[in-house]
């Protein structure tokens, strides 16, 4: 195993006599009986110098997070770890026990985990988690000193009103503020090495950009940064060096800019190709798989409604939608404020917005799950809102939904076949016919036949989403509402699912309302785009027009916040 070539600048004061901060040679990790038993990390090597950023990129199951945790001795009791060389600050740590690791954690290496509400202890005030490092390591003993330090840290990472926020509970902070607080907690003891594990995954684009800037600022102050991500765009923004991992192995390593502009390994190439953007529109994102085996004509026989001509040419029409909700403070808030749009047959309308923009409420109004306070929805020229559910029921098959995480909409005890059969049973009464149709549908979404007896929990995220799509198209809908359908998926799986949705649009004559916070994804799939902000439509138009030359300030901010693959030569933009 050769070590990564680093062209580090001058080492910053604090590192031990010129030795790299971290040196790992031939790291192997297994959760089996021995290191050789089905290892999840198979020989990873790197060195880390002060002021440099190393990115480890890979999809889920690649071993990137396990690698990061090993640097803190947090791999878990069952992990078997072997290295040829494992040094932190020039000291051999390969034989460290838990007590020795504890002295290192927080003080020499800080860990920033992904913001989930559960990354901070929800039952304790933010100050208690942020100040936990100094308290444990007994660097600050007096209460006032500790609190002053917490406020200073929160201020440093850009949390507004730090003295107030410090005394609040995690759920009272926004996602971006929580992520900042996690970074503050990791910086509390001023460690030389900061590991950020998917630090921006759950965040909106504008917040994501701010957090990445913050991480980069800490690196510029001389810290070494290791960033773990599945997102090449995030990585390209920060990384000096890059390691691409797949199934525990390093497939490519070297200078980040070089790899991103001229990947040598086909897997890296595949990852780069899979990133959706405006430029990739109309192209397949995944290596061409056999699209779908079922002949589409089989699938259309069930309902022949597509032949019906449309009055006015709009499949779906929303006019002046308003919807208010009363918050826990008894103040009514307009979640959707005067939103109008039209959807034509075979068209994809992208709805983009950050969390709280009202996009999910729009989805509910379109689906007829909520009634608008004002305005109306028309489906295929006929009223869809403001009528009784009984009148809607017969036309429900015209509309389908695909959610971000289909797992919660499946009965966990049912097999995949039964989940789909349940939907089919509405149109076909005999069991043999139902089974045949289920087979066709699952062929259509290319779900391998061997997986059909499995339960939802036994499937991967991508496979589950295929099942959800099969179920969504089972009723031969005219419109499918996709609410963040690929947000939970790895980039190569995301590419396959987006390709599948594109194929189905052509084959089944469906239109999509495609809701996402990911501008790249929306740009890739949409003909027209609607930008929502605080419940209002900020901008609307053709997707190239809106996302390449945004007119409104908010859209401009949104577009510029999206991390791009910054690659000379490839000139690939995400949005």
């Amino acid at each position, binding site marked *: 195993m050769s070590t990564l070539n680093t062209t580090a600048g001058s080492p910053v004061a604090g590192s031990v006599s010129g030795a790299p901060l971290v040196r790992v040679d031939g790291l192997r990790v297994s959760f089996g009986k021995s290191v050789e038993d089905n290892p999840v990390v198979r020989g990873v090597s790197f060195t880390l110098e002060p002021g440099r950023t190393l990115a480890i990129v890979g999809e889920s199951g690649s071993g990137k997070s396990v690698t990061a*945790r090993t640097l*803190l001795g*947090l791999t878990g*009791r*069952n992990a078997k770890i072997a290295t040829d060389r494992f040094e932190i600050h020039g000291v051999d740590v390969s034989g460290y026990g*838990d007590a020795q690791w*504890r*002295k*290192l*954690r*927080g*003080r020499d*290496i*800080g*860990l920033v*985990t*992904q913001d*989930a509400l*559960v*990354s*901070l*202890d*929800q*039952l*304790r*005030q933010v100050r208690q*988690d942020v100040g*936990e*490092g100094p308290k*444990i*390591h007994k660097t600050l003993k007096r209460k006032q000193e500790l609190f002053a330090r917490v406020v200073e840290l929160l201020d440093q990472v850009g949390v507004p*009103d730090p003295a*107030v926020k410090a*005394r*609040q*509970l995690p*759920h*009272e902070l926004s996602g971006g503020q929580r992520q900042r607080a*996690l970074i503050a*907690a*990791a910086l*509390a*003891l001023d460690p030389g090495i900061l590991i950020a594990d998917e630090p921006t995954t759950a965040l909106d684009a504008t917040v994501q950009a701010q957090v990445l800037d913050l991480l980069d600022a800490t690196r510029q102050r001389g810290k070494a940064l290791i960033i773990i991500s599945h997102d090449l765009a995030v990585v390209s923004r920060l990384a000096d060096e890059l390691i691409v991992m797949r199934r525990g192995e390093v497939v490519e390593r070297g200078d980040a800019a070089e790899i991103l502009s001229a990947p040598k390994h086909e897997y890296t190439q595949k990852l780069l190709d899979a990133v959706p953007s405006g430029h990739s529109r109309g192209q397949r994102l995944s290596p061409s798989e056999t699209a779908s085996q079922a002949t589409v004509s089989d699938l259309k026989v069930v309902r022949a409604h597509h032949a019906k001509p449309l009055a006015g040419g709009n499949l779906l029409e929303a006019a002046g939608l308003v919807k208010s909700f009363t918050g*826990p403070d008894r103040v009514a808030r307009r979640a959707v404020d005067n939103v109008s749009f039209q959807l034509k047959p075979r068209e994809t309308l992208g709805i983009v917005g950050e969390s709280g923009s009202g996009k999910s409420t729009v989805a509910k109004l379109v689906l007829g799950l909520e009634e608008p306070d004002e305005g109306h929805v028309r489906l295929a020229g006929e009223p869809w809102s403001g009528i009784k559910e009984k009148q809607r029921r017969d036309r429900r098959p015209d509309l389908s939904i695909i959610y971000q995480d289909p797992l919660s909409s499946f009965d966990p005890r049912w097999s995949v076949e039964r989940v789909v059969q349940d939907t089919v049973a509405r149109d076909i009464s005999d069991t043999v016919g139902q089974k045949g149709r289920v087979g066709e549908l699952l062929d259509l979404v290319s779900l391998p036949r061997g997986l059909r007896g499995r339960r939802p929990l036994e499937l991967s995220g991508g496979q589950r989403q295929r099942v959800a799509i099969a179920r969504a198209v089972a009723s031969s809908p005219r419109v499918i509402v996709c609410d963040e359908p690929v947000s939970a998926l790895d980039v190569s799986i995301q590419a396959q699912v987006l390709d599948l949705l594109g194929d189905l649009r052509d084959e089944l004559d469906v239109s999509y309302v495609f809701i996402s916070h990911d501008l790249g994804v929306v740009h890739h799939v949409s003909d027209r785009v609607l930008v929502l902000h605080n419940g209002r439509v900020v901008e609307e138009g053709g997707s190239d027009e809106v996302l390449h030359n945004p007119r409104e300030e908010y859209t401009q901010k949104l577009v510029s916040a999206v991390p791009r693959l910054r690659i000379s030569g490839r000139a690939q933009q995400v949005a």
Partner: protein
Amino acid sequence: MAAPAPRRRGVRATRWLLIRVASGVGVLWAAATIAFLLQTLTQQSRARLIYDQRVGNNSIPSKGVTAAINHQYGFDNSVLHQYVSYIGGLVHGNFGVSYFQHVSVWSLIIQQIGPTLILTFSALILAWVIAVGLTLLGAGRHNIWSSAIANFLQMLSASVPSYWVGTILLVIFAVNLHIFPVLGGNPLLALVLPMITMALPVSGFLGQVIQDEFSSALEQPFVTSSRSRGITDFGVRTVHVLRHSVLPGLTLSGWAVGYLFSNAVLVEQVFDRAGIGGVLTKAASEGDVPLATGVVLLSAAAYVIANIVVDILYVFVDPRLRA
């Protein structure tokens, strides 16, 4: 965004508490009404019961005697009148007069309630100590033995009836080993065996819900981020995870107080302890309806108060509810 002013928070907290107390009063009122209905359902025989007790045999009272008794106790009034005066009496702390001991029910109960309350609450505390102790030792540990032993003890304590445990404890520790008195003796020593008898099954139930929550909290990302700051395993368990896991245990404790209170009746008999159990068994066997309903109402009150206390504790443990 500024935090809500402490004063408004205080107003909201007071209102919340008032609502809780009001609904508790509602429960008690319902219990009192049912108790009253049970009393009046025995209307025909109440005068007869009292007469039998007075004369000491089963002779049939003359109409005049019956009427006198009916008049003395107010049985000749309309049901509504009786109901209003019964509820009115309860509001003023008047639980009625025992048919047979001819003193107020309240004074009979108050004499005996002390030992039962001591037994109930010491058992609840012991149950918590056992449950939390075993959880801290056992939950999520990779050492198979410690969690296996903890699990076994929990299963055992949750499934064995208390009178059996009581008898076995008596035989082993009092009769054979002479560590604790069989009867009487030092009141603190005499408390130990019945307390353990009552605590064991409750600790089993408590332990199971606490341990489940503990194990899942231990898998949460905040545990990893806390560990990455250098906290010890014991620190993670006590400072972070335990607080999350006691919440369902608190909910169960409201139920446990009712369970313990009624179980005390049984355990007091097994250990021949003073307490409300003796009062209730005597009242039930003699047909002393006011006394029996008094005990029932008191149990209901204990249950209601325990649940209000649990709700208050819940807010202390889970600060998210304070908003």
